């Protein structure tokens, strides 16, 4: 027996969730499909390939205040930002959930990022399997899969006139409505995803660091931050203090290793000043340094950077080029 | 009596003419609305459009850029360049929905204390007529 919810009951459930919590789901605005807070169930897009930006924004905002400084009677107090409302992130695909699990590693490793931790703790992830992977998707090569429920709280798979309900975690179990019933139903098989030769990539990367390949690849790169900002696992940021009208606060905003001043240090020296070195860093962080430190590749294969890149820097091509290069260089 | 809306204005005045003109208004005991905050700059040609945008961002309702009359620039041609630059910036601001009346560029000489007083008064009235700028949330 499988647990099941009808389409009608799903809508009622979502309506209830909108009342009780913040519901973030894919919606279309200005022709762009983005994860945004919704107030009407009918605005939610259920059948989609990938959103333009990843849902990492729900936990690691493009800009957020980390703490404010309060001054009173000669005393100075730091008031940390808190997350005071529960959120449901609805409709994310398994690759995006895996992206979150990857970001958990750096953010929640001790000393943990408390604001990120709060966002995570107060958000429930209700996922939809990916039924139509794009041509640029390669999740299966990165350890995920279009129907993989692992990093979600609930997975809803469309079947017949409703959805098969899979509560993956206790948090997911808690949020389920009573309209979920038991039914004899077979879940559809996952679609196939084009593979990339990622096996052993991390070790091969070690051998090709000095290859002229990287500066040649950077010829084409315009060094914007698009790839980093659409990526579900890019987590670099900048921090600065703001003072305005007596209010002092520390703010964090997205940054990217492709920015010219990203690694510039006091005195003006920049250890990664060449464009080739900056572009190389992007791939080394994902395919070499991150696995070294956290034991998993820092890419989920969602294909967003491939689609959004203005000059077609394609990580699939980079992976296969690196494999060829590594084979040529030898061990 | 209701308190009238008091606009906030930033004035970038050139050191050689307009700042001296404002000084003249002061030493002649002329009164004009206290809504303007004056910043002295070497020349109207030094006023970067960024200074204007930054003023608006920080909550200014209006910005005044003022320099020597054409032909009188201490640096010969700074104000001619300012004239071209701000003509375009005003069009751009207007296109973005920031009324072009909010950016005024005027020529005031060192002896025109009365003119400076008139200018600040009429600009204040104009901004009162336009009302506060709509908030751009931070």
């Amino acid at each position, binding site marked *: 027996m499988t647990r099941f919810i009808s389409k009608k009951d799903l809508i009622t459930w979502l309506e209830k969730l909108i009342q009780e919590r913040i519901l973030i789901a894919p919606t279309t605005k200005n022709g762009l499909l983005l994860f945004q807070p919704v107030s009407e169930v009918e605005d939610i897009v259920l059948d989609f390939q990938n959103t333009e*930006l990843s849902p990492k924004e729900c936990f690691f905002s493009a800009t957020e205040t980390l703490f404010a400084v309060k001054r009173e009677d000669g005393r100075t107090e730091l008031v940390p930002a808190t997350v005071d409302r529960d959120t449901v992130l609805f409709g994310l695909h398994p690759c995006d959930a895996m992206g979150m699990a990857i970001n958990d590693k750096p953010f929640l490793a001790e000393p943990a990022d408390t604001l990120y931790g709060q966002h995570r703790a107060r958000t429930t992830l209700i996922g939809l399997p990916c039924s139509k992977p794009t041509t640029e998707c390669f999740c299966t090569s990165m350890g995920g899969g279009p129907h993989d429920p692992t990093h979600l709280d609930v997975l809803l798979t469309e079947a017949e006139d409703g959805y098969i309900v899979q509560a993956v975690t206790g948090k997911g179990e808690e949020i389920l409505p009573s309209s979920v019933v038991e039914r004899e139903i077979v879940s559809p098989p996952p679609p196939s995803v084009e593979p990339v030769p990622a096996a052993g990539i991390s070790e091969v990367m070690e051998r090709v660091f000095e290859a002229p390949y990287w500066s040649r690849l950077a010829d084409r790169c315009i060094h*914007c931050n698009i790839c980093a900002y659409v990526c579900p696992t890019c987590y670099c940021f900048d921090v600065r203090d703001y003072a305005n009208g007596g209010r002092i606060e520390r703010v964090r*905003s997205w940054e990217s290793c492709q920015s*010219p001043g990203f690694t510039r240090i006091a005195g003006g020296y920049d250890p990664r000043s060449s464009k080739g070195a900056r572009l190389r860093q992007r791939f080394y962080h994902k395919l070499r340094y991150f696995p070294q430190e956290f034991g998993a590749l820092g890419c989920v294969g969602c294909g967003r950077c491939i689609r*959004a890149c203005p*000059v077609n820097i394609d990580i699939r091509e980079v992976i296969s080029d690196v494999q060829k290069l590594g084979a040529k260089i030898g061990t | 009596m209701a308190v009238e809306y008091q606009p906030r204005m930033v004035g970038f005045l050139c050191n050689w003419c307009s700042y001296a003109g404002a000084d003249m208004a002061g030493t002649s005991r002329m009164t004009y609305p206290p809504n303007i905050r004056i910043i002295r700059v070497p020349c109207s040609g030094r006023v970067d459009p960024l200074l204007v945008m930054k003023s608006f961002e920080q909550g200014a309702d209006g910005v005044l850029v003022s320099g020597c009359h054409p032909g009188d620039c201490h640096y010969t041609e700074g104000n001619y360049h300012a004239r071209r630059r701000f003509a375009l910036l005003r069009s751009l601001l207007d296109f973005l929905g*920031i009324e072009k009346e909010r950016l005024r*560029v005027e020529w005031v000489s060192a002896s025109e204390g009365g003119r400076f007083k008139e200018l600040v008064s009429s600009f204040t009235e104009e901004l009162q007529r336009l009302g506060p700028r709509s908030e*751009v949330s931070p």
Partner: protein
Amino acid sequence: MRQELGQQIGEKARELLSSGVVECVIGYERATDGVTARPLFVYGVEDVDRLIFDDTCIHNLTRYLLNRRDKNTAVVAKPCDSRAINLLLNEKQIEREKVFIIGVACQGVVETRWNQAGETLQARCQLCSQHTPVVYDFLVGEAPPEQPPPEAYADVLEMEARSAAEREAFWQEQFDRCIRCYACRQVCPGCYCSECFVEQLDPLWVGIRIAPAENQIWNTIRAFHLVGRCIGCNECERVCPLNIPLSLLNRKLEKEVWELFGFQAGMSAEAVPPFATFEKEEKLGIGE
């Protein structure tokens, strides 16, 4: 025809590379989606066969000349792109004798997205009347017959006709979604400051926040820094991942510059740009 263009470019590239006239040829090749094009840097004759040219070759490659200032380089340039070469020559950013321009007489390019090439020409191409590059050393292709250009600023006029409040609301909504990825800047041949105002720390003009107030300053000043300099290649709008209509701003300023000063950027390498000169007696609605 299209295949022919790619071949002609390839042959010229082979000649230039083998004779040592240039060290690198910047052109186009097929992207990994098999549909669109991407920039290609050819350093050796073995790669010249990868060169293509068709209506998906939308990139303005002249931006890359700024990365190769001291090296002899050939570049494939459409008419709009060629205006950027004049801009860069005028601003003393590149040397004419170090650049070999393979001009392409252009019939227009199509709207492309990843894995998709449109059927119809880009809006700007439909309005374009410059079908032959303004500067080139070698020309391939054939320009279509001249036609009177249609009204080029319909959308600008439409926006001007709206109320200030409507315009403000419109742009606020557009700028609010900016994520400050700076792709518009990075792709622009006119945006080459070694340190952009937006990244300067002293003075700190714009903070790091990706938020409406900062976004507005960034987008306004970006457009303003291109007054009399924007050559209309529309690359900024193409690369914007959030579809902000940047060309509407650029063309508003282009229109103003044309009406006030009769100037069009990049038409000649010698013409003095409007902000580098002035007329003593001109009336611009300021201080009058």
